[in-house]
Every structure is written in C-alpha cells, then in structure tokens.
C-alpha cells in the first residue's frame, strides 16, 4: 500500500497536477476570502472563516474529481492495471494507496489556509476574538469532506476507462452527496422523514462538525462513506473475477 501511495503521490508532484490543484484552490479561496467584495471577510465585519468553509466544498466538488479521475481509468486504459493487479498485493491495498495519495494532496492544498486562520485571529477585535473550536471543527470537517470526495472520485474512476466521463461522474456524485440529499429532503413536508433523508448527505454532518462539536456520529458517517466507496471500488475491480 505504501509503495502505491508513494508512486501515486510522486506522480502528482512530478506532473503539473499537484501544483495546479494547490494553486487553483488557493487562488480561488484567496479571492473569495479577501478580494471579492460579496464574500470578503474584510467587508463582512465579523472575524470568522465562514467564506472558506462554505465555498471550499464547492471548489472541492470540481477539484477533487480532477485529481482522482485518472487514478484507475488511465491504468485500465494503458493496461498497467493488469500489471499492478498481478503483483503480490491485494486490490484493497492498491485502492487504499491511491485514495491516500489523493487525500494527501487535498490536505497539502488545505494546509496553507491555516494562514487565513492566523490572519482572522489578528483581525479580531480584541485580537484573538475568534471561534477557535468552530474553526478546528471546520478544518477537520473540510478535510473529512475532502476524503469522502476522494473516495467517491476513485470509485467514479474505477467504472470507466475514459477520464472525462470519470471526472464528470465524480463531480456529479460529489455534488449529489454534498447537497443532493439536503435538497431532496425539502421535497418532503414531514419533518421526521426529511431529517432522515438529510442525514444521508454530507452537508448535514459537515455543518454539524463545523460548529466545533466533534461528534462520533458525524465521524462515523464520514468514515462509512469512505468505507462504502472503497468497497464499491474493490467490487468493481474484482468483477473481472466474476464467473458467468
């Protein structure tokens, strides 16, 4: 697994992918946070990171499927997947290695935004007047959301050999997972069922964790999504072994 991780991560760093992903993410977030008047913290008046945490997921919806779109689709197309699958490692190790490499890149893109926290901290009146637990929870939530999107993206990449299809499908599934359930639940008038449906979506748990309360139910939800997606991907890879 570690070998696959190292290889994948190196391939991000050796190509332009890593730099483009980090550059685009930081540019977008920087513009939204500090420059565009509609969302800028400076004009807003309150020292918080809301813009980052509410807009970040939407940037991830497009950026993460772009990172993961080639992970399995390209290997399938080039035939290297056959080579990899006949090495003495299990299918899960391959998927996990690729998942962790994509996630590591997401974390790498997220790390510089800690500077935003420092800036907000300094901008508070008095200095340091920020919701620190909220920010910690939100950073954790954004990282977990990134991890979920990575697993969804790798799943999308496993079902096709075409990278464009993989990207579009990945972005669609991420979007659906993020806000789809929330929007669907508004169709239901009954409170109980609407809440039940809402809880399937990432947004519900992301908002919950963003309040600064790190609830085991939310953590369990994120890890379950990742687990289910990796299992689905493993099933797709294992389908070559199915007998008629």
């Amino acid at each position, binding site marked *: 697994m570690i070998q696959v991780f190292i290889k994948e991560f190196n391939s991000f760093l050796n190509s332009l992918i890593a730099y483009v992903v980090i550059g685009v993410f930081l540019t977008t977030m920087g513009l939204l946070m500090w420059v565009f008047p509609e969302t800028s913290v400076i004009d807003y008046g309150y020292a918080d990171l809301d813009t980052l945490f509410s807009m970040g997921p939407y940037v991830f919806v497009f950026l993460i499927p772009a990172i993961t779109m080639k992970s399995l689709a390209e290997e399938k197309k080039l035939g290297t997947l056959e080579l990899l699958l006949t090495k*003495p490692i*299990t299918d899960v190790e391959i998927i996990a290695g690729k998942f962790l490499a994509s996630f590591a890149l997401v974390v790498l893109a997220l790390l510089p935004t800690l500077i935003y926290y420092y800036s907000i901290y300094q901008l508070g009146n008095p200095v340091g007047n920020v919701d620190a637990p909220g920010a910690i929870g939100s950073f954790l939530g954004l990282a977990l959301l990134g991890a979920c999107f990575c697993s969804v993206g790798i799943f999308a990449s496993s079902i096709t050999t075409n990278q464009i299809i993989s990207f579009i499908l990945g972005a669609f599934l991420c979007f659906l997972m993020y806000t789809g359930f929330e929007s669907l639940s508004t169709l239901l008038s009954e409170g109980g069922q609407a809440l039940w449906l809402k809880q399937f979506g990432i947004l519900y748990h992301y908002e919950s964790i963003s309040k600064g309360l790190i609830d085991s139910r939310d953590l369990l939800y994120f890890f379950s999504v990742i687990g289910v997606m990796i299992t689905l991907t493993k099933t797709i890879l294992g389908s070559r072994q199915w007998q008629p």
Partner: protein
Amino acid sequence: MSLQVQNLTKFYGQQKAVDDISFTVSEGEIVGFLGPNGAGKSTTMKIATNYLPPSSGTIKIGNYDVANQPLEARRITGYLPEHNPLYLDMYVHEYLTFSSRIAGLNTTKSRARVGEMIEVCGLALEQNKKIESLSKGYRQRVGLAQALVHDPQVLILDEPTSGLDPNQLAEIRKLIRNVSRNKTVIFSTHIMQEVQALCDRVVVINRGKLVANDTVPNLLKSQSGSTALIIEFEGGVSLDELKSITGVLNVEEAGNFKFRITGAPGIDLRPEIFRFAADRHLSLLGLKQEEGSLEGIFRELTAAV
C-alpha cells in the same frame, strides 16, 4: 518451481476460450507457447497470474494453487503482459524500484536488484530517462526488467518480442536466454525461429485446444513420416527410371530435370541416388534433403478444422 496446468477451461460468456488443456513446465525449462491469434494463449497466461479466474481446472505454480493462494504464487512469478504496459511518466530507475518494492523487497535488496537488472538488461544509459522517451526495444527491456526484478522463479512472458526489428529481436532473445537460467519460463509467440532458438519444448494450442506438446526436434521429425529429397540432374533422365530405385515411394517433377523424391520412412535415399547417377554416368547437379520447417508444422497443426 514448476508450472502445472491441469484441465484448464475458460469461458467468456458462451465462447470457450480455453478448452480442457493440461501441460507442465518443469523447473529450469523454457517452453514456447504457440498458437494463432485468438487461440487462448493470453487467456491462459492471465489465468496463470490470477488476473482472471479459470472456469474450471487449476494452474499451480510450485505448490501454490494460483486461484486459492494468489499472493504467494504472484510473489514467485514474473509477468510481462501482452503489449508491455508501462507507466510512461515514470523514470526507468524509479519504475524498477517501484516494481521491486511492491514485490516485497526491502530497500537494500531493492537497490541491489535494480542495479543488477539495469546492468543485465542493458539500461545503464537509459536509467534516468522517462519511459515515454524510450524506443520500443528499450521499453521491452524495461518490461522484462520489471518482470525479473524480484528474482522470480517462474517467468510468464506474453509475446515479449512482438513488434521489434530484427536487431532488437536478437537482443531481446539473447536477454531472455541469459536471464532464464535456472528459471521456469513460458513465453508465447508466433515467431517460429524464436522457438527454435530459445525453447526446450513447444506447447501448441489452437482454438483453445492443446494440439502439440513436444520438443522441437521431435516435432520436426513427426511432421511427416517420410523424408523428401530434391534432386537436379543435368539431363537425360526420366521419371520412370527414378521410380525404379529401391526405396522410392513417389517422384514428382519439380522443374527442368528437377525432381522431388519421397522415400519410405527410415530409409536414407541419398547413397542410392548417387549410385544411380554414377551407374548411368549422369551429372548430378543438386541433392538436398527437404527439412520439415516449424512453420509447416505450425500450419499443419493449427489449420482451420
């Protein structure tokens, strides 16, 4: 470590790709796996590496059943898939290190083996280049080095020489011969000279069925029971005269005073022909024994039924 294929059958949907084939490659042997395109060679090799499951039957590598103990079997197997897939954006050295580490070698051992492979496969000048910038011959070497880097006892090579020019062909062949000492090797090809140059034994399959499993000399002998001679005289000889020579079964005219003579099995006609010519004061211009060629055998064995 030997490779045993027992009653292997593989269906793709309704289509039978491999039909109940059994053969063994014993330790230290190089076996050529022949067959026309679509005969089931690649399928058999994919099953041998557990990429695909068999519909029925087993393949054993050493003592490991490939389907039940895939990881153990893969650890002692080196595999070069058809079309030699490679990570084009990796450097040669980096790729070989990755291949060796993923096969379970530790850092020191991996470094030693990668260095050795680069030397053996003649990649010293190319080791710091990206694979995408290499020529086909060098890519093939990288593919072989990748299959060999963890020092496997069993080598499965799927068309290792397809699409190479004659010089590269000779080099890759030499390389396979060098690296395959003390290893069990099975490689598929449809180049007959290659089989003659490399193999101890040949396994031929056609439409999924095993049609031959023998050494090259035995196959050559078995092609046709009788031997044929091509002889050429300066002139003055007739077909009937030749037929009267003892041991001659059939004579065909093959040109101007040129004949193709088939003799009874096990009889060498050449001394008789010489005596015949000397007795009649004929000038014998040519006398050649017709060799059974592997191409001929291949065509004979795999002719459409």
